[in-house]
């Protein structure tokens, strides 16, 4: 990976580059990052995983939500350098080569997306919820997704999708 930095043009401030190690979707990585690089940029441009979307870029919309050590985080609001030693999961980590994740199936079954822009963030926020609470009520789903904006669906089908996935995951764990 080649990284090109702007030359600050003075002798005093050398570009401060730091080496970080982290895991993304189970794969170990090493990156050299400028501290001001945001986690969202590291994921999209550095690693090329463009499933994580940038919506508002102002900590409002939740489209860039990823999991950091299992917790939902808005990746536009965390520095990449802070991912040092952490485990990151993005939407690309949900499916296996042969099978969709129940959340993805749920969004398909219940028509949980229209334009699809918010979907990766919705799924990652929902995953954090279901990891912690496998049997949420509809209200709990709504609160858990209240940091993620959707301009198309009116949320009804997103909530249904998550409840569908919760049920599937529960039946899988019982089976």
């Amino acid at each position, binding site marked *: 990976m080649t990284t090109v930095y702007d030359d*600050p043009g003075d002798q005093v*401030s050398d*570009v*401060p580059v*730091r080496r970080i190690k982290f895991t993304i979707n189970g794969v170990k990585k090493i990156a050299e990052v*400028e*501290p*001001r*690089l*945001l986690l969202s*940029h590291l994921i999209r441009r550095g690693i090329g995983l463009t499933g994580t979307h940038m919506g508002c*870029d*102002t*900590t*409002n919309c*939740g489209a860039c*939500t990823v999991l950091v050590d299992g*917790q*939902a*985080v*808005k990746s*536009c*609001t*965390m*520095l990449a*350098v*802070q991912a*040092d030693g952490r485990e990151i999961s993005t939407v690309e980590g949900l499916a296996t080569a042969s099978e969709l994740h129940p959340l993805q199936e749920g969004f398909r079954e219940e028509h949980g997306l229209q334009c699809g822009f918010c979907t990766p963030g919705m799924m990652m*926020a929902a995953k954090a919820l279901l990891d912690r609470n496998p049997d949420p009520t509809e209200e709990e789903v709504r*609160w*858990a997704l*209240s*940091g*993620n904006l959707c301009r198309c669906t009116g949320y009804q089908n997103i909530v249904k999708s998550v409840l569908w996935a919760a049920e599937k995951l529960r039946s899988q764990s019982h089976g």
Partner: protein
Amino acid sequence: MFPSRFRYEAPQSLTEAIRLLREGGDEAKVLAGGQSLVPLMKLRFASPELLVDINNLPGLGYHRADPDGTLRIGALCRHVDLERSDLLRSTQPTMAAAAPLIADPIVRNRGTLVGSLCHADPQGDWASVVLALGGSVVAQGPGGRRIIRVADFVTGPFQNVLEPDEIAVEAVIPPPQGARAGGYLKLERRVGDFATVGVAVAVETSGETVIRAGIALTGVGGSTIEAAAAAGALVGQPLTARAIEQAAELAAAVARPKTDHRGSAEYKRHMVRTFVVRLLSRADPAAERAA
């Protein structure tokens, strides 16, 4: 968007963090949850030359009660920790009501209460809550620790009294003298928006008599507003309908709302009155028995 260039340090000890801050002087900033600071840096409203990330400092993620009931909240205690806290649910009604209303659930995973106090946004919810509870901030610098009442801690919008080489390491809520009641109500257009109006109420009662009261207002002035006269009027009597009405009037009178896209000044002032009535009516020990 991305921030302007800065030097980044992530010290492993508080001593080291304070040394770095001393080195950076006015150009250094502490990074805790980063849910306000990082957006500000991206918008270039803040351009610190040195960022001291305290997330690797050990032992600051706590919130716990001393044997006497004093609540202590460490600098790395996240909003989500407080939202899920049984300790808060059983002993701190005002804080327990506020925790799920801070920003949105994803922001609550990272943001911290102490950071919110330091950020001193006039629309920050925790400042009102901690003010109503008579809380303080513990600051640690090269010369040791000092305790600053939140009422004295914030000097203006986005300004606090911390020295450049001091770190706010803890927020402290004093123990109650009586039975604690209260809550926090926030009017917002949608989850995650700043409060159109927020009201924090904390009362302590002995029998039916109020022995301590705190009321503070969010989003209805250039800073968090302590409605001291309203709170003072409650002390020494039961929470009668008349006492509640009087406190609500006094609280609405000290609000300094401005008309904006969130609502008219008149509407916001009216909501202050309504919220004070609602919160105090629920706090009444007599009402609780009846229910």
